[in-house]
């Protein structure tokens, strides 16, 4: 292959890629900051009617277009906003907790990792594909309410999900993104837990609630796409 052909091909690919992306210089990039929390709640048998696991670590980034509310009190029209993002949670950062947040059991943690096939799938991923503002805040301290569409990948199985997320621009240019959704673990080929612990036998239900608070701030380092 001639060098000129290779260069021409690469230029064409670059142009094609650029055309398919939103204008990079119009996107504001926010990356994860500490202070977030992922909580997964489930049901179980009578001895332990509920269980919960938590992670203080939610990583990733979100890129938003000009119409996205990044300041408190900003007026933004309802409807679809330009946004895309990738979020992840390291599986081993998930810890079983009591209802009051105290650590529950090492064994329960290990069972969680085993069921989520942790050595093989180290992270839970979420890819945001579409964000629609459906409710403007009623006060300056209230969040913007969005419908979020995206893909959730657990244990290597990806499913499309839709959920309501609340986005609250904070005074320090950070965004607090909260929300919750319910998923069936069997949809991700995760078997319900069936285990004997010292305090009794635990069998978990299929449906779990994912409750999250994700804090992002202006990206400290430019991403590859926005360079």
């Amino acid at each position, binding site marked *: 292959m001639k060098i000129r052909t290779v260069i021409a091909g690469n230029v064409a690919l670059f142009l094609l890629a650029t055309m398919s992306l939103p204008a990079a210089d119009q996107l504001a990039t926010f*990356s*994860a*900051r*500490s202070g977030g929390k992922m909580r997964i709640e489930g049901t179980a048998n009578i*001895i332990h009617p509920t269980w919960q696991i938590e992670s*203080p*670590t*939610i*990583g*990733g980034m979100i890129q938003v277009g000009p119409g996205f509310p990044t300041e408190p009190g900003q007026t933004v029209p309802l409807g679809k906003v330009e946004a895309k993002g990738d979020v*992840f949670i*390291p599986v*081993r*950062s998930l*810890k079983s907790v009591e209802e009051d947040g105290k*650590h529950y*059991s*090492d*064994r329960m943690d*290990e*069972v969680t*990792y*085993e069921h989520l096939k*942790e*050595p093989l799938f180290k992270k839970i991923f979420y890819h945001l594909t579409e964000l629609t503002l459906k409710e403007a805040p009623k006060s300056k301290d209230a969040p913007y309410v969005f419908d979020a569409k995206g893909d959730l990948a657990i244990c290597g199985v990806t499913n499309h999900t839709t959920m309501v997320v609340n986005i609250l621009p904070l005074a320090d240019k950070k965004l607090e993104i909260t929300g919750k959704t319910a998923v069936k673990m069997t949809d991700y080929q995760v078997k319900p837990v069936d*285990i*004997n*612990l*010292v*305090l*009794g*036998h635990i069998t978990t239900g299929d449906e779990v609630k994912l409750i999250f608070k994700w804090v992002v701030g202006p990206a*400290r*380092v430019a991403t590859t796409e926005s360079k």
Partner: protein
Amino acid sequence: MNENESDALGHNRRDFLKGGSAATLMTMLGGVELFAQTNAAPAGETKAPAVKIKVAVIGLGAWGREIINTLTRMPHADDPIEADIAAVCDTYPAFLKRGGNAAPGAAQTPDYKTILDNKDIKAVVIATPTFQHKEIALAALKAGKHVYCEAPLAGSIEDARDIALAAKAARHLAFQAGLQMRSDKERLFLLPFVRSGALGTSLLARAQWHKKTNWRSTSPNPEREKALNWRLNKETSLGLIGEIGSHQIDQAGWFLKALPTAVTGSGSINFWKDDRDVPDTVQAVFEFPGGVRMIYDATLADSFDSDYEMLYGGDAALMMRVVMGESKAWMFKEVDSPLFGWEVYADKVPFYKDTGIALVAGKSKPQPVDAQGHPIQLDPLTSTPLFCALYNFLRNAAELDAAAEDYRSSYGADDVAGLMDQLGKIVRRPAADYLEGYQAVVTAVKANEAILGNKRVDLKPEWYELS
């Protein structure tokens, strides 16, 4: 403590009594019972491979080799931690060879700095003579290694403070003082029992360590003889009260949830009249708040009744001792003490004029079983206090490393303050930390001072604070 008073861990007597009643009911139903968690995995589960941690052992005397032997048992069964002994270190060639034989495949070096330079080694266990701990511990923390430092941490309060402050500053690392009783499953099982006031009003504590041994190692030349027998020289050793007693005294304070306020001691060389200047027999009385005293004695000249620790309360006394490496405990109840219920089913052992009710983990019933009715077997080799302590150390180290890696991958490497904050919130497995290690040295140093001076020493609360 009255029924409704809670300690810092949230234990109170009423809750414990309620727990006892529930346990009795559940026992009758074939369900819950009071025994410490085992590492046995439920049958039929697929397990993730253990996390392998490269660790080095520095100091290969008898205790250092015991540490190697214990580490080689990890992973045990389905435990998620595997100790990979990557290097062993001792300046004495004979010890280095023996330690190396116990850890096949481990690099052997007389210079601990080569271990600290090895980036693959994440954790070190320091089992050198006490007076050498400070230099190695500080260098290891500076090199970013997780550190398990044998107790006593140091031979002086100043050295112990330096170590503790360095450990306090290195929150991203696991630092553990070798007070292994604080990680022992049996003791952790008993702690809420005692703290809940189950023994009644605290009256007295007592502990002893009796062994017929000269504490002396033979050596080929005078220089080596002096180096090997550092414990017999008061310039380099805190003697029996420091090298042995610090574990038992710390345990009493841990259960009583208090630090001693004064110590009166005495000691003498009664039997081994060689060139040593460290007493072969010591006694000390530690005063705790509320009029509770701990009586301690240790001797190298008589082995009767070996070693154990006692706690006495108005309702019951508790004996804790290690038998064949395994922790055991018995309760001796007063006739007018309240009935828990579960003790009806517990193993009982005759002790001269008394009957001891077994409180040993897994022995509250004649044969503990899992939910399917299968007998649960406890493995004595992996139930020793040392195994529990080293396991918790490596587990904490792995947890911190994983959390730091996750944090950096999520939030970048620049947010050091956020990382430290998050690592500070990591739930650590029970273990003696830098402060407890430091406080044990304060007590041991002052007790040794009392013993050598045949006197009483007030223990000022501010001495126990790290500044």
